[in-house]
């Protein structure tokens, strides 16, 4: 089973790499550059910042409030990541208002306020869910 999965996976990877090399419309160097850049940014910049923020949270927030604070922070961060390209709005087209039609900056702020407020208000419930028996 393990060998079959590993072998099949290697074959599929090989198909992807060969396909990209043969496809005249794929700039393989550009693709590799983008993938490696993402990998480095994620592992060497983004994650250290997240880990640092987590340590700070553990130091600054009272232990009883940490779970809710962490959940609010994780949710907020994920929403920010998804919203960022929309908020920056570089994809807007002058003659086509149907692309990115909303005020994403304001909407993001609204979502962050509502989710953070809701999570903090449900602090007690989160603590109960957390402490539920082993599962």
């Amino acid at each position, binding site marked *: *089973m*393990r*060998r079959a*999965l*590993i072998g099949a*996976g*290697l074959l*599929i*990877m090989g*198909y*992807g*790499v060969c*396909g*990209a090399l043969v*496809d005249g*419309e*794929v*700039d393989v*160097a*550009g693709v590799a550059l*983008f*993938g*490696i850049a*993402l*990998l480095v940014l994620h*592992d060497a910049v983004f*994650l250290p910042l*997240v*880990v640092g923020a987590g*340590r700070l949270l553990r130091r600054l927030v009272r232990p009883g409030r940490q779970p809710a604070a*962490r*959940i609010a922070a*994780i*949710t907020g961060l*994920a*929403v920010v990541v*998804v*919203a960022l*390209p*929309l908020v*920056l709005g*570089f*994809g807007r*087209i002058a*003659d*086509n208002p*149907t*692309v*990115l*039609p*909303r005020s*994403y900056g304001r909407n*993001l702020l609204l*979502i962050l306020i509502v*989710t953070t407020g809701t999570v903090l208000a449900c602090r007690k419930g*989160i603590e109960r869910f*957390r*402490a539920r028996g*082993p*599962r």
Partner: protein
Amino acid sequence: MVRHPDSRARRVLTWLTRPLPPPPERLRRGPLRAGAFDPAPRAGGLVAPPGADGSGSSPSGGSGSPLRSTRLTSQLGVALGVAFGICFLTGLYSHLLQHPAGWLPLPERPAGLYRVTQGLHVATGLAAVPLLGVKLWSVYPRLFTWPPVRDPAHAAARLSVAALVGAALFQLVSGMLNIAHWYGPMPFFFTNAHYWVAWLAAGALTSHVGVQLPVIREALRGRAATGRAGTPESGDATRSAAGRSETPAGGDAAPDRSGTPGGREAAAGRRELLLAVSLAAGVITVATLGQTVRFLSPVSLLAPRRPGTGPQGLPVNRTAAAAGVRAAALDPGYRLTVTGLGRTVELSLADLAALPQHTTVLPIACVEGWSSVGTWTGVRLMDLLRLIDADPGECTAEVRSLQAGGRHRTSKVGNPADERTLVALRLGGEPLALDHGYPARLIAPNRPGVQQTKWIRTIAVRRAS
């Protein structure tokens, strides 16, 4: 030395697992030092068991998070595997619709199928953002395994993990940039790159599951088997099952020993993070799904498109001005040419309007995941084919736009005999807006928006091979 049939294979195996010289110990600093990610002792007396993985933990304790566990990683991994599986299959379907394989005819019904599969593709990809984020965080300590490379096999395993992480990040980020129409940061053509990297990610994921299978099995076994999970033997099993390739790294403290105080704390932390990921995925989904599920539109505050808006209540991807067809489309001398099988007819807009008109309700479903329904009126494609005495059941048609260039200026219709496939002249009872393809556009069931060719100039008919 006796020659043995598999001595060559054995030599390769020996080479692959031959230990490499370890790097100098003085390089082992920062995140690389022993126990760097071990949980800090908690105020309140709950100390995570030191050295739960049996190696690399310092008695002093690090400042790592107590929330990491093999079980958390495995559960997130399963969810992520399902999400990537959905994205891969729906993406493959979209690819096959746009690049039909002769051996695999795809049906035109249900008419709204592509709208669902592509909506699901984008929604699942977006929901996978927090999943991937927390999953990668949960295995972050493994990046700093010491020694970095034990032997050639270990190097290959680590390289394939790097390929997996790079490909996964690539897919999610390039997809997000694409739905935001932000192509600047991508030094490549999105569509083809997204397609081939999907294969790379799928393969790397399959191999990764193969490598980690025993660890995953062990971590997910027996939901409430507190006793089992707490016994030293099962801990050893985790380690030996992980094999030579990877052992749970320094940060993987407490594989959920629910019987112990530290285990209870780890289980609580795991539930907390699963709750956070679910909440994040839920918020992201509600905030964007309204681009295709119309009743969610008012609360989908981050949806890149809004169904029901735009000229004639329909969003536009490419305007007539951007496509460079304004003048040609508004030219009163416009003629639609139907040609093939040795015959050609030219039709003015008045000729087209004089032919039998049919009305159908069909969605425009974009590859970017948004969709919006319109009521289209026009001439059936099969009726146009009959004008040149072509049998629609025996032919295929290539629809060409007035556009002089661009990737999507032509599209093929494999089954022109479909009665809902129209050359539409009207939308919602009015003549087509210029940005929706005036004077005439293709509209057909179960078809990506880029193939609903606008501003038709020519329909080239060919006998189906």
